[in-house]
C-alpha cells in the first residue's frame, strides 16, 4: 500500500511475476501502475505490505537488487550534451556485470547514433537509448514503464520488435502501459489495474474470454431512437449491452449470428442505422466491461 496524504495510490495490489514471462500492468493514467513499479524497484517505499523481488527484500538487499534489476522509467531525460555512447558507458560503470555499451546499443538498433548528443535524438531514439541503458547490465528482471508513450506508430512497432526479441531471450519483463494493444501483443499475462487495485489478472486470451464473447458490435441510430436494452439482449448471441454517447455496444459471441438479427430488429421497428462497426474483443473491452470506463478516460 502507498499513501500520499489522504490519497491512497495503491492498495491491495497482489501480484506474482514468474521467471521468463512478460508481465503487463495495464490501466489508465493515474491507476497506480507507476507507483507499483517504483515500489518494486525500490525507488518508493511501500507504507504497508510485503514486496519480494528475485527472492530479495528492499531495505535489506538493496545493493544486490539494484545490480540485478534493469529499469526504464517513465519520462527520464538523459543529459542532453552527453553522447549516446557516453550515456550507456556511464550507466554501465555502475554494474559489476553486463555487456559492452556497444553491445547494448546494437541490441536496440541505435549503433549508428552512438556519437550523437542526446538532445539531437528523436522520441523513438530516446526510448531506445533508455532501453539500452536498462539492458547494459544484462538484468534478470527488466522494468519498462510506458516504453512507447508518445511515440508515433512506426517507432512503437520498432520498439515492440525489440521487446519481443528480449522475450525470446527468456528475460523476465514487467511492462507498464495504458495501451491495450501493447499489452495484448507483448504480454504473457496481464494485470488490469484501476484505482490502485488489480481488477483482473490472466493471459490476454483468458481476460477476453472472460467476457463470454469474443466480438464487439457498435452501432448508432438516427434520432437516438435506440431499442431498449432488454430487446437488444434478446438478439441471438448478445452477452452484454452498453449505451455510451449515442452509440450502443454489444458484446457478442458470433458476428454472423448477431448482426443479421440486429438489422432485422431495427428494420422491424423502422429505426434507421447510421453506423455499424464490429471488431474482435480486446483488453480495452475487458476494461470497459469491468469499470464502465475506457482506458483513455482521464
Amino acid at each position, binding site marked *: 500500500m502507498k499513501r500520499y496524504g489522504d490519497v491512497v495510490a495503491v492498495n491491495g495490489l497482489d501480484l506474482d511475476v514468474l521467471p521468463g514471462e512478460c508481465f503487463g500492468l495495464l490501466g489508465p493514467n493515474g491507476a497506480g501502475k507507476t507507483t507499483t513499479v517504483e515500489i518494486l524497484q525500490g525507488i*518508493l517505499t511501500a507504507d504497508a505490505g510485503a514486496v519480494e523481488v528475485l527472492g530479495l527484500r528492499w531495505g535489506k538487499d538493496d545493493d544486490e537488487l*539494484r545490480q540485478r534489476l534493469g529499469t526504464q*522509467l517513465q519520462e527520464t531525460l*538523459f*543529459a542532453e550534451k552527453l553522447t549516446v555512447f*557516453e550515456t550507456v558507458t556511464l550507466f554501465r*560503470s*555502475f554494474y559489476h556485470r553486463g555487456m559492452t555499451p556497444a553491445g547494448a546499443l546494437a541490441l536496440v538498433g541505435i549503433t549508428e547514433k552512438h556519437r550523437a548528443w542526446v538532445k539531437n535524438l528523436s522520441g523513438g531514439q530516446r526510448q531506445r537509448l533508455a532501453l539500452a541503458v536498462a539492458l547494459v547490465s544484462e538484468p534478470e528482471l527488466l522494468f519498462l514503464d510506458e516504453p512507447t508513450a508518445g511515440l508515433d506508430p512506426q517507432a512503437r512497432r520498432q520498439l515492440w520488435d525489440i521487446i519481443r526479441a528480449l522475450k525470446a531471450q527468456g528475460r523476465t519483463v514487467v511492462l507498464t502501459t495504458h495501451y491495450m494493444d501493447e499489452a495484448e501483443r507483448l504480454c504473457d499475462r496481464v494485470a488490469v489495474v484501476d484505482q490502485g487495485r488489480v481488477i483482473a489478472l490472466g493471459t490476454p486470451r483468458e481476460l477476453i474470454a472472460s467476457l463470454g464473447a469474443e466480438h464487439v458490435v457498435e452501432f448508432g441510430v438516427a434520432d437516438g431512437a435506440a431499442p431498449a436494452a432488454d430487446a437488444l439482449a434478446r438478439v441471438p448471441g448478445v452477452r452484454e449491452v452498453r449505451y455510451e454517447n449515442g452509440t450502443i455496444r454489444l458484446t457478442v459471441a458470433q458476428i454472423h449470428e448477431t448482426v443479421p438479427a440486429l438489422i432485422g430488429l431495427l428494420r422491424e421497428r423502422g429505426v434507421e442505422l447510421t453506423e455499424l462497426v464490429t471488431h474482435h474483443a480486446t483488453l480495452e473491452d475487458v476494461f470497459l466491461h469491468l469499470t464502465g470506463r475506457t482506458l483513455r478516460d482521464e
Partner: protein
Amino acid sequence: MSDRAGGPLLQLTLWRLRELWREPEAIFWVFAFPILLALALGIAFNRRAPQALTVAVTESAGAREGGRAGETTTALEAAPGLRVVALDSAEAATRLRIGRVALVIVSGDPVVFRYDSTREESRLARLLANQALQTAGGRREVREVRDVTVTEPGSRYIDFLIPGLLGLNIMSTGLWGIGFGLVRTRNRGLLKRLLASPMRRSHFLLAQAAARLVFLVAEVGVVLAFGMLAFGVPFRGSAMALSAVVLAGALAFSGLGLLCASRVKTIEGVSGLINVVMVPMWVFSGVFFSWSHFPDAIQPFVQALPLTALNDGLRAVLLEGAGLPALAAHLGNMLVWAAVSFGVSLKIFRWV
C-alpha cells in the same frame, strides 16, 4: 573490468566536465567574463599619470582697473598639474557646480578661492594654486625638498581587483555549477533514474566535487595568469597558501550550491535562491571596493560572509605574501560554512 570504463567515480566526473565544457555559455562566464571585467576596470583605473586639475580664473565683480587676471593666469599656468581656463563669473559658478572645474579663482586683492571643501580634487587644486600664486608673488621656500615617485605593484586598484574577481568567480561557479547542475538533473527525472541503478550516492556527490576541482584549477589559473601577465599583479605568497584559500572557498561555495539545490525542483526556483545568496556578497564582501566603507554596525555580518573571508584571504596571499598561520581565521570561516552547508544538505537532500 574494462567494460566499467574506469569506474563510476571517473564516469560521473567526466559527465559533469563534459556538460560544462560543451556549454559555450558556461565557458564564457567562467573564463572570458572575469578577464573582460578585469581588463575594462584595470584600464579605467590604471592611468597612473594623474589628470591635470582644471581651474577657472575670473575677474572680481568690482575690479575697476582689471589687469590682475592676466597676471594670475600666467602664474597658475606655470604650476604643474593645473589647467587654467578664463571664464566669466556666471559660467565659472556653473562649471564649479557640475564639477567641470575643481576650483574658481577670483583674481583681485585678496585673491578669492571658491570651491567645495568636501571634494578631494578641489582641495588639491586649492593647494596647488595657492602655492603657484605665492611663489609668483615672491615667497621663498625655507626647506629644500626632493620628490621621488614610485608605482608599487600591490597598491594599485587592479591589484585590489584581481583577487576580488577571483573570489567572485569561485563563488559563482560553485553556486551555479553545483546548484544548477543538480536541479537540472533532478528536474529531468535523471536523479531518480540514477537512484534506481546501483550508483552510490556518495560517488555522485564526490563526482560533483571532483569536477568542480578540475574546473577550479583552470579558472583560477587563467584569471590569475591574466592579472600577472597583463597588469603585473604580484603573487607574493606561496602556491600552497593560495591552494588552501582557493580550496576552502570552493568547498564553502559548493556546499552552499548543494544547499540551494537540495530540495528545489525547478531551474527558476534554484536561480532565485542562488541570487538571494550571491547578491549580498557581491555588495558587501569587498569585490570591487573595500568592505571597510560599510558602517561598523554591519561589520559583524560583513565579516561573517564567506566571500569576505575568501577575498581577504586571496589578497593576503597575493599582495601581502601571507602564510598559512596568518590565514587561519579566513580558512576557518570558509570551512565552517562548508561543513554546515554540506551537513544540512545531506540531511535534507531530495533524491526522488
